[in-house]
């Protein structure tokens, strides 16, 4: 049971020759599109075909040489590979194609995979690794698999122990020359953009020193505070320059965090809600202050695809704005991450702060 990378390369050439022949026969042009090598590691399951389809769709906006490692569970000796072209015809007479190589392996044979992947990496182009398999990430083979990657995309979404998962990200970032990304952070982009947009109005910006209350409502079936929520709290408080203090004991569904602002104390309340119809952990966000002049800003979801920003200010009618807030999908999140190739200082800062908050919560 072996894979010969040279043979895979030869099969890729055959795929392209066949595509070119078909294109001539059909009277259209075929174009090879590649902007990076996208190496994806996912657990083999009944959903594997859906993941492969999602990755193929991802290529439309992010043409890449796609190498997918499907990791089987159990103590098997599986190791096999297949090559294919994923093609689409956006318009006119041009067919666009990207290569997809699928490697099926098991935990026992995962160590063989980095040697197969390295010669298949497209020259002169960045390598991005998306690791959606916790088993692969914990495997001794992971460092070799990640070695060619300039950027490693992980996902703490389903981590049972959010603090440990976030600490691992920091550790990984310290050890690896690659840039680390977390899809739990990516899930926040639209929410963060909405809040940022509010403060493009200089009248609201002027009240930043007056804010001293934040409420974040979230849902989670397993009783933890999801990493996404910790990262959001980390981002808002670090942007407001609030320093975390101790945590106040409170009801199980309600955690109150104390902070020190430049001009006084502040509180952040994390409130668990039972919401079965929300497509994500974060349900709503509120920012306000005790001072009468401070506006009250709230952002929440009104439907699966729509969000609402509401601003109340003393003596004025409230302003309400509704915007597209689609449920985040892996396709959307990966697409956003693939568009980024540099360090993400906001993420790094928020991650450090989220870990601090999670530690305080644990201590409290």
């Amino acid at each position, binding site marked *: 049971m072996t894979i010969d990378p040279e043979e895979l390369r030869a099969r890729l050439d055959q795929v392209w020759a066949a595509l070119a022949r078909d294109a001539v026969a059909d009277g259209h042009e075929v174009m090879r599109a590649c902007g990076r090598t996208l190496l994806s590691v996912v657990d083999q399951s009944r959903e594997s075909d859906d993941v492969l389809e999602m990755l193929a769709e991802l290529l439309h906006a992010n043409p890449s040489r796609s190498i997918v490692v499907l990791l089987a569970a159990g103590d098997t000796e599986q190791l096999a590979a297949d090559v294919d072209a994923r093609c689409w015809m956006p318009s*006119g007479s*041009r067919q666009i194609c990207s290569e997809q190589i699928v490697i099926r392996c098991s935990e026992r044979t995962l160590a063989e995979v980095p040697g197969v992947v390295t010669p298949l990496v497209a020259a002169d182009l960045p390598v991005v690794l998306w690791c959606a398999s916790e088993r692969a990430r914990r495997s001794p083979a992971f460092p070799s698999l990640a070695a060619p990657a300039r950027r490693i995309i992980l996902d703490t979404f389903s981590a049972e122990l959010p603090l440990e998962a976030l600490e691992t990200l920091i550790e990984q970032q310290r050890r690896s020359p690659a840039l680390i990304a977390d899809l739990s952070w990516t899930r926040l982009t639209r929410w*963060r953009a909405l809040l940022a947009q509010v403060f493009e109005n200089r009248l609201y910006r002027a009240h930043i020193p007056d804010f001293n209350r934040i409420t974040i409502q979230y849902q989670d079936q397993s009783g933890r505070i999801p990493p996404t929520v910790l990262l959001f709290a980390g981002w808002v408080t670090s942007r407001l320059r609030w320093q975390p203090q101790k945590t106040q004991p409170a009801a199980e569904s309600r955690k109150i965090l104390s902070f020190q602002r430049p001009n006084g104390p502040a509180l952040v309340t994390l409130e668990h809600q039972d919401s079965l119809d929300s497509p994500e952990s974060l349900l709503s966000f509120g920012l306000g202050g005790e001072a009468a002049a401070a506006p009250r800003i709230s952002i929440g979801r009104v439907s699966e695809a729509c969000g609402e920003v509401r601003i109340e200010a003393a003596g*004025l009618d409230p302003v309400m704005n509704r915007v597209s807030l689609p449920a985040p999908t892996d396709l959307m999140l990966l697409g956003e991450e693939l568009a980024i190739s540099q360090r993400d200082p906001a993420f790094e800062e928020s991650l450090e702060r989220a870990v601090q908050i999670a530690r305080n919560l644990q201590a409290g």
Partner: protein
Amino acid sequence: MSSPAAALDANPFLDPLRFRKGASDCVMVIFGASGDLTRRKLLPALYNLARDRRLSAGFAVAGVARRPIGDEDFRAKMKAAVSEFSDSGPLDESVWDGFSQGLYYVQGDFDDPAAYTRLAERLRQISQARHGSGNVLFYLSTQPSYYASIVKNLGASGLAGPDHSGWRRIVIEKPFGHDLASARQLNGVIHSVFDENEVYRIDHYLGKETVQNILAFRFANGIFEPLWNRRYIRQVQITAAESIGVEGRGAFYEEVGALRDMVQTHLLQVLATVAMEPPARFDASSSRDEKAKVLGSIRPLTHDEVLIEAVAGQYGPSRVGGRGLPGYRQEPGVRPDSQTETYAAVTFFIDNWRWAGVPFYLRTGKRMPKRVTEIVIQYSPAPHRLFPDSDAATEPNVLVLRIQPEEGISLKFHSKEPGAGMRLRGVSMDFNYGSSFGGRSPSAYETLLLDAIDGDPTLYTRQDMVEASWAAVQPLLDVWKNENHDFPNYPAGTWGPAEADRMLERRGHRWRNG
């Protein structure tokens, strides 16, 4: 809300790595709110921006027009327009409900000072209702003949000028004047009320992603710029062909013609983008300085040169694919003996060290075989003919920058055909914008409106650029107005008059009819 003494300068929540540019709060006052441009372009662009979370919560539109309707009627009309013309899929009712709360209507005659008093009062109410900080963007989407009157009234009513808590900016649609003298006169009126840095003259071509990409292509890659000069480039062609006719706008087109409508505006701006020197920085001032400089370096044609270096055309009736196509003179609103050109081609030379002697061929036309806008850079052939048996080797390398449709870049070069001997064949190396980046690109109006709200005039034309481009076409206007053209001189559905082909043939060149 109490007005704070000092607003913080920077928004701490911005994340330029992740968020696309947003917009500060403002009221956009659209003069000509019942017009076609508002319905087809402006409101769909604003709705798309709102939907994509790029407008501030308190953003508002105050539409100004003559019709006596109320806010609710205006909202209903705009909803119908957005449903019809937005390219971002079906209207999202929830988003629309929020967005439409910020739409207001002010009835008034553009020449009537009382309308501006009403507008000022309405802006005060809107600012209160939307928690506005006093920023106002005026947008002139009216007939150009109203521009001067509106600007004067804005000044006289105190709606524009200094002493406001927020900024004041004005966006002005083309055509900016109808010749060099009128453009200068209009600039004078505008500057009596607005500073030049508050004036945004819109040319939507400059907002197109692919036109902006010309700058990235030229100045972000090390390999092309060294070859971007008279030593390696033999000729440049800029074509904007439309397959449609005047589409019911005959009366408007009669007053404008292809030269004013396309060459003086879009094509010369594209020429400036192709031919400008690298700016020191990518900011509004440096980029526009370079564009103004190259437009000012276009050699004015003499009377005799206009006769051989420029061609006017007008389409006549024809049949294409069994379908009868009317001639321009058969279009509604067009005089039966019209002398208005629907086609214009011109050869320009740029008098500077980089481009001396390189012809820039510009052409535009209606009812041409297909809709295509492209820039063709034709390189000089290899200096030594190493493969004499191959005709292909005498063909020059061609770089094509396609602006629409199928936006992209292709480079034609020679390659050996497989097999014995040394037979060459031209092949094409293609970059397709859509296939490489996918997704929906923002429309030119979305890009440009955000820039205006954000105070970034990089993609807008400046007074000196406008006047330089009028100066370039003024000799053609002067000659053509006195000429009795033998129109129609090209059948609908063809690539224009034969004289335009001969204009290139004199230098051994020919149009690339891509």
